[in-house]
């Protein structure tokens, strides 16, 4: 199965729209404490089938990122962070591989591997995404403390939503 399943395509579109129409508008910290950014849509890349070739994962990340960038008015920012996350995905999967290995049709969801595995998997990737995102946004190591604070606070906020989605929807794929 080298093709992108229809379910994932629909999920990418829905999550992308939710991100730019809903999550983008929510400002948890208010205008003067703008450290909470809800960035939830990366979960669609995490949920791609495990056996999907990494080149396709990267291309899907790139296109998804560009689509979100179009609404955020930041060409290259989301795409750059998401491509970085897509690139780290195989390594994280290998790191978290169960003893029996992955079977051909498995999808990286809590239903298949348990909630603890899912938490480890998504939190590592989300952290990579957010760190890259805020680093590219600042584009200079001068603001390293602000980058780290933003990454940490946004991580908590976004992760809660990603986890709730998994618990409530409990998708099979």
């Amino acid at each position, binding site marked *: 199965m080298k093709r992108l399943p229809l379910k994932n395509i629909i999920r990418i579109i829905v999550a992308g729209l939710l991100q730019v129409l809903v999550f983008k508008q929510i400002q948890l910290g208010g205008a003067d404490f703008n450290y909470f950014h809800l960035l939830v849509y990366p979960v669609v890349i995490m949920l791609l089938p495990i056996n999907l070739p990494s080149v396709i994962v*990267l291309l899907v990340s790139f296109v998804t990122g560009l689509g979100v960038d179009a609404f955020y008015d930041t060409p290259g920012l989301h795409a750059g962070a998401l491509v*970085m996350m897509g690139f780290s995905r195989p390594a994280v999967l290998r790191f978290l591989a169960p003893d029996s290995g992955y079977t051909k049709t498995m999808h990286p969801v809590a239903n298949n591997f348990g909630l603890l595995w899912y938490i480890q998997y998504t939190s590592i990737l989300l952290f990579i995404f957010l760190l890259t995102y805020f680093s590219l946004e600042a584009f200079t190591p001068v603001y390293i403390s602000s980058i780290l604070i933003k990454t940490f606070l946004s991580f908590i906020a976004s992760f809660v939503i990603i986890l709730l989605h998994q618990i409530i929807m409990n998708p099979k794929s």
Partner: protein
Amino acid sequence: MQNLLQFILRYGSFFTFLILEAICIFMLVNYNESQREIYLYSSQLTTGKIYDSFNEIQSYAHLREVNDSLAGENAKLKAQLLSLKKDSTVTDTFEADFDIIACEVINNSILGRNNMITLDKGLDHNLEKSMGIIGPSGIVGIVKRCGKNYSTAYSILNTDLRISARISRTNYFGTLSWPAKDIKTMVLRAIPKHADVRIGDTVTTTSFSNIFPADIPIGVVENVDQKPGRADFSIDVKLINDMSNLSFVYAVKKKDKADRESIEANNE
């Protein structure tokens, strides 16, 4: 073909990643204002330093020429001073209306179409964007961007630049640009065909632009071309400055520039 595809699918992910990430950073730098500023600023820091150390070596070779030109300028200034002393009613309006900052040219290109100059002064020396730059005998360029200690400037040998200029004998004004043909000639356009233009006329700056002081010499008319079907002359202007051996230049800024800009902006 099938094998190649297999190979790319298996091992190409790293290269795909590099290519995609390069595209992203390219877009980030080109289409986002803040990332672009940081990129340009930091690249200017390093290139400025490299040019500066290279220039230090080079400047020894040019010491003699620099000396000659400085001595010549000194003499000219002295002569002006003397004439001022003789006739004390003539006040030097140029001095009064403009801030002048002496800079050294540490990099200068003349080979491309959009040539730039790098100066050894920056924000710390009160240099700012869109100041005019004049050489010992005529205009040289316009400041484009200032770093802390270095600035880049458009050379007048830049096809993007348009300078308001006039023929000093008759006061007809037009737009001066560089057609990228040779480094000694610029083209003056938009002078109407009924104007009296003779070969040898002096071309100077106008007071219309807020960048250069009026009546700074630019060059002399070398050739007047009447293209059929056009309502204006195309005048070749031979530059007075030799753009290929610049060393010391002066950045000038009108003192009441902001005032004029705000009042002209209100007209629109």
